[in-house]
């Protein structure tokens, strides 16, 4: 291994810029770190070069630990985006500079200088000065200068960022040639995916300080694991359907899920369709083709050899679009590319799929709210109990009242993750109104569950606001030890939805718990047929999830009394409630069933919003 990074991490001003990152780059490989600006890719490169000191982790170059060595002693070459050619030196002097520093004799220096000038295609330019060269020529000089002392590792930071498109592709070819001839291991940082595809032996995809995916360009394009990978590399449509009997259901289609993609029955599945995998036809396609449906062309862009077409299709029940995200769009937008000369007829077309890729299910994410000032410190035991069985990524969120409070709070929060025995948790500090900031964090990072401690001293304002804007399941913790063996799912409150059964069942499966489905009957009345049908459907869902389940009917004067009585008698550890839209006049504990259950019971409660 030429380059080996282990758990390399860096924060600036308490803000993590590079989260613990490990990476191995093979001998002679050209590795491209790809990511948007601010993703931390340049910081990784600067740490490898020794220009930025990491907070933790190790850097090995050719098995030598260089973590604490200055850049001069690392044996690297570095190419900056702005070239940084020394302007008072000629091109030749610039290239000889590293050799002069190393006290190489003049004759040898001249020989190496000429060799490198030839390699980068600048033979005869040795006596020029930077201001006499074009940007592309300056970058060639920078490359020659970075290679002349035969470094073991070449690092390039957006080397072609300041150049125009035509010169870029020329320089890329030249760089690839030189790098392969010299056999030097290289890391190149760029935000340009085309550059990544063209140059890389392997690509590492970075986002928000995390190395999300590593792979060969073609594999990353065809089979990304993450939604970010699917959308950042190349265009495409990501549709979300449900898994049924080993296939992803997208409208009328059942797309087989390959065995290597983990999935659970009835769980959401994300399907990536690249534009070139979409077939557009004016007439209904032949049988045997995977027909998605009919739509209308809303956009056509001529791209030279190809034409990009965007088709809007009416909404399909149970199918949602994750990308491209267009605000206020109810239907599905499918992107396709066709040969420019292809005639796809009028605006109404048939859309079918030639290929697709099923994304791996995302790692579950838990948002743990830490608001000790509001009487709701983070429920650490509960977070720990969920982290391991879910293999979840935990974020600990605190909200500061003022800008000055952010830094001390972040430091305190980081200590609390350690004290709470969640050392891998990420500390997130936001500023503003607690409920609004929790909701915003949920929206931004798509957490699967939000954990919130039921507040002491009756300070339920934040909780009430959270319930009002509920977008993801909210687990309100209270009571004793956090182990879940028996889960009560109440289908009696709110609209009879499937979301509560599905989320509760999913939780039970991961935790190895058993589930009771409860329906509360008005006293003296019998069960209506739809109640049984509803409970049976729920039990079927649980069976599909391989969760032991039973149903129970309980007569009570009010649903609330029924739930509280069952919860008290059955020895349940967790109550799952569906959340309906709040009714007018419910803005108090007395009128909100959810809050009343929380107040009158000592159990933790999971509140599940209905399906979108």
């Amino acid at each position, binding site marked *: 291994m030429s380059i080996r990074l282990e758990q390399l991490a860096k924060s600036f001003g308490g803000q993590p810029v590079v989260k613990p990152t490990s990476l191995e780059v093979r001998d002679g490989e050209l590795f491209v770190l790809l990511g948007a600006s601010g993703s931390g890719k340049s910081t990784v490169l600067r740490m490898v*070069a*020794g*220009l930025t000191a990491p907070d933790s982790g190790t850097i090995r170059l050719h098995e030598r630990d260089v973590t604490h060595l*200055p*850049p*001069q002693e690392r044996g*690297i*070459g*570095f190419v*900056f985006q*702005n070239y*940084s050619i*020394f*302007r*008072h*030196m000629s091109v030749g002097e610039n290239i000889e*500079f*590293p050799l*002069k*520093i*190393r006290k190489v004799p003049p004759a040898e220096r001249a020989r190496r200088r000429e060799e490198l000038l030839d390699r980068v295609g600048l033979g005869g330019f040795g006596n020029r*000065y930077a201001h006499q060269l074009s940007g592309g020529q300056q970058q060639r000089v920078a490359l020659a*200068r*970075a290679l002349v*002392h035969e470094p073991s590792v070449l*690092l390039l930071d957006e080397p072609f960022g300041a150049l125009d498109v035509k010169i870029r592709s020329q320089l890329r070819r030249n760089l690839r040639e030189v790098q392969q001839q010299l056999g030097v291991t290289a890391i190149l940082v760029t935000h340009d995916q085309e550059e990544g595809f063209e140059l890389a032996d392997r690509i590492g995809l970075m986002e928000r300080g995390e190395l999300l995916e590593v792979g060969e360009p073609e594999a990353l394009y065809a089979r990304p694991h993450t939604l970010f990978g699917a959308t950042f590399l190349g265009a495409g449509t990501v549709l979300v359907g449900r898994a049924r009997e080993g296939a992803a259901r997208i409208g009328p289609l059942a797309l087989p899920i390959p065995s290597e993609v983990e999935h659970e029955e009835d769980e959401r599945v994300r399907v990536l369709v690249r534009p070139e995998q979409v077939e557009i036809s004016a007439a209904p396609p032949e049988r045997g083709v995977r027909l998605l449906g009919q739509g209308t062309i809303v956009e056509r862009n001529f791209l030279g050899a190809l034409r990009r077409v965007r088709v809007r299709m009416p909404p399909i029940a149970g199918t949602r679009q994750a990308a491209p995200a267009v605000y206020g769009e109810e239907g599905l937008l499918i992107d396709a590319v066709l040969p420019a000369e292809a005639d796809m007829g009028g605006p109404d077309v048939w859309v079918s799929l030639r290929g697709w890729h099923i994304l791996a299910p995302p790692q579950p994410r838990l948002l743990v709210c830490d608001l000790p000032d509001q009487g709701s410190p983070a429920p650490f035991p509960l977070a720990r109990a969920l982290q391991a069985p879910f293999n979840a990524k935990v974020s600990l969120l605190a909200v500061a009242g003022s800008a000055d409070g952010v830094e001390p709070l972040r430091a305190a929060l980081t200590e609390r993750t350690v004290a709470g025995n969640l050392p891998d948790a990420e500390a997130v500090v936001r500023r503003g109104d607690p409920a609004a900031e929790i909701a915003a964090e949920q929206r931004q990072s798509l957490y699967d569950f939000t954990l919130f401690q039921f507040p002491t001293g009756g300070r339920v304002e934040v909780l009430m606001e959270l319930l009002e804007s509920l977008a993801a399941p909210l687990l309100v913790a209270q009571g004793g030890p956090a182990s879940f063996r028996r889960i009560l799912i109440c289908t009696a409150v709110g609209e009879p939805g499937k979301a509560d059964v599905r989320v509760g069942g999913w939780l039970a499966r991961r935790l190895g718990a058993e589930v009771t489905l409860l329906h509360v009957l008005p006293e003296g009345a019998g069960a209506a047929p739809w109640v049984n049908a509803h409970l049976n459907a729920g039990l079927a869902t649980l069976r599909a999830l391989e969760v032991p389940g039973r149903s129970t009917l309980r007569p009570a004067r009010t649903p609330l009394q029924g739930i509280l009585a069952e919860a008290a008698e059955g020895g349940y550890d967790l109550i799952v409630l569906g959340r309906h839209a709040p009714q007018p006049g419910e803005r108090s504990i007395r009128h909100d069933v959810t809050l009343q259950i929380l107040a009158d019971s000592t159990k933790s409660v999971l509140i599940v919003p209905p399906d979108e």
Partner: protein
Amino acid sequence: MIGNAPGQRSRAAIPVGLLVLVLLPLILMPIAAVFVFALKGGPGEFWRAFTTEDAQFALRFSLLIAFFTAVINAVLGTWAASVLSKYRFRGERPLAIAINLPVAIPTVVVGTSLLLLWGPIGLFGKMLEPLGLQPMFTPAGVLLAHLFVTFPYMLGSVKPLLDELEVTYEEAAYTLGAGKWQTFRYVILPALRGGLFSGTLLTFAHSLGEFGATVMVSGNLRLRTQTAPLYIFAQFEAGHVAEANAVAAVLAALSFVIFFFLLRYSGGAGNAKR
């Protein structure tokens, strides 16, 4: 649009003539007068006035002070410029203004304040007196005053060049294997060459002609702290016009030489062309 058309050239004759007419008594004639009066008594008389012990001392003392002022401020000014251009800190602007203040303050005021601080009854002077140190009315005092008064010139010449250098300039040198000193010696310093040169000349020239602060702190002691400008003033006051003029002419000639060097380099001072 101005000057190139032949018709306009003839029209320019009147305003240009007027300008020369105004400048004549203001600048050109006084300069000429210095040389005219210096050589009025013939070369022999000039030589006599020039070679008196006092005149020789004053000129040599002035050159010596100017030399040390230039050398010391070249180092101090470059250092200050590098600190100011490298780091971003709170109070950066007030500090930059304070450092440039000596240009704005009348030099006599500078002399007065130095005297008040370092003089026998001054704050520091009082502390130094028991040690037998008395910086005022000594060559060291003159040097101190000159360093203070000319400090901003070096800074002003070097800092723009440093600001213009790319942030990655130093980093590039490090990644190529150069240590901190090598980076300064081979990469940073050469880039500052033009600014260093013009800054040093400016400092030298100003020190050579400095009067206000010098007259306060030197005590104007002949053969001890009397600089050339002070000597000229003293001789004039005593009615020795020939003596005064001989030194004045030499001083003027020296200034011309420096001025022409500066002119030649002012084009290249802003950027580090060869």
